[in-house]
């Protein structure tokens, strides 16, 4: 990815971590084990990856509306992604983040990216997310997109 990407702030916050990206939308219900932070949808390209503490980038939340509840459990259990990047304001992720803020004062930073910027994300890149929605790559990485 390039050095700096500017995202639209859906839920404001700071985060840093390793990017984990896929073009496939993800359902957390049946797709995310909040006990371990592992992506467990066996049809998803990120199946088997640990998203806990990483900057998870998927276009949007697919399928069940229970995605929100599972993500909230992950926040409480400490296994949630450090931040979530999408291509549009995803109401499932946004709501989980708002409730995580209201209940545990732990909102998950959430940014919506232009499709062109989303396509520049690379799994393994280490990024820092700022409150104004800028995503800055911290160091070069050789990892490929998953």
């Amino acid at each position, binding site marked *: 990815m390039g050095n700096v990407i500017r995202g639209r702030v*859906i*839920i404001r916050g700071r985060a840093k971590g390793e990017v984990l990206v896929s073009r496939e*939308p993800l*359902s957390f219900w049946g797709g995310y084990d*909040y006990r371990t932070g592992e992506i467990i949808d066996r049809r998803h390209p990120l199946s088997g990856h640990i998203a806990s503490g990483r900057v998870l980038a998927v*276009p*949007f*939340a*697919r*399928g*069940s*509306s*229970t*995605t*929100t*509840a*599972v993500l*909230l*459990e992950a*926040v*409480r*259990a400490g296994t949630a992604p450090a931040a979530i990047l999408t291509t*549009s*304001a995803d*109401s*499932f992720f*946004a*709501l*989980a983040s*708002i*409730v995580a803020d*209201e*209940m545990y004062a732990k909102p998950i930073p959430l940014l919506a990216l232009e499709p062109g910027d989303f396509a520049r994300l690379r799994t393994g890149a280490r990024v820092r997310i700022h409150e104004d929605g800028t995503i800055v790559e911290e160091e070069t990485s050789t990892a490929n997109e998953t």
Partner: protein
Amino acid sequence: MALKLSRSDDALLTGKHGPAAQRAMSIVTRMAEVHGASDLMDITGAHIDSTIYIGEAGLEFAERLASLGAQVAVPTTLNVSGLDEHHWQEWAVPADWAHKAHRQMIAYQSMGCLPTWTCAPYQTEMRPSFGQQIAWCESNAIVFANSVLGARTERYPDLLDICCAITGRVPAVGLHLTENRAGEILMRLVDVPPALQKDDSFYPVLGHLVGKIAQDRIPVIDGLAAQPSEDQLKALGAAASSSGAVALFHLVGVTPEAPTLEAAFQHRAPKREIDVTLDDLRQARRELTTAGGEQLHMVVLGSPHFSLAAADREARPPGREIPGHLEPRDGAARQAIRLSSSAGGIRRARDRRHVHPGLADAATGGQAADDELCEVRLLHPRPARCARHLRQPGGLRALCRGRSSRER
């Protein structure tokens, strides 16, 4: 665009109606800001999906609202619980898990929600009407309400649903507004044999394909020759909302907002046009089969929740016996049996070891007879206090030893 609140919204947000409503309103307004809404609007019904116990956070959320005295402001139905509340000991679930799952059920009932325990609230007497503004959660119910009934709901996430029910207000955005309900993608069925279009298996396969193609857009399906049943539409929507994020589809000549192709698109041009062929459907069918081998281990009926019509179809003499009999697991399925029975629609298996009509998905011992099954019924859904007992073969049985917080 700044969010404008009405005086009553403001009263809720500043705590004039108590701390629970204040919290709920805070979440609703923050979501309205995420969507860039300029106003909130009234709803007249809600369906809550946050009823399944997944972990501590969901339980804490529900019990906190309940303990703050939350009450729903509109008629509100409840989705399934993960717990078979009367026979949970027959399942391999830990007592601690069952206890917490039950606490979560009680918390939502104590807020005044109707204990319908179904993922298909459109099959109950709470079925919304055309144009009705509602806040529904549960993906299959959302797509059915919008597409088949022409009611209006956004694709609400778990936890926001109860906040909308408590406040009776939602952000005035998305599928609540006419202009956002126009079709976006045209999917044209090409050379799909009419006989196939009448088959039940066609609709979940088509739905799976529709969801994969449409993703989070509104698909318009044209070229269907058959008149699908409500159960077939239900299967189409459920599959499309699982493989994609479809909250509304139009089926030209079938669904209420699509009398014509032009009407489905609100006289705008499609953003994309796609032909759907038999080959595409075959490919989608293959994607849906993940199991190998020939041994059948389990049959699950009713996902989404079995309808009365489906129960009636299953009542045809089965082709083969399976050991034991099955009993519906949740309230609405039991109701379906009761209705079916009183309508003379229930057919008794000659042998009690046959599949029982109206069955859902729980296997119990083989002794109970049809007559006993028919006795299993949910008393008419009423707020929690009235419906804490179920009529069972052995008489009334309390739903739980504990009591709802409101009655303590």
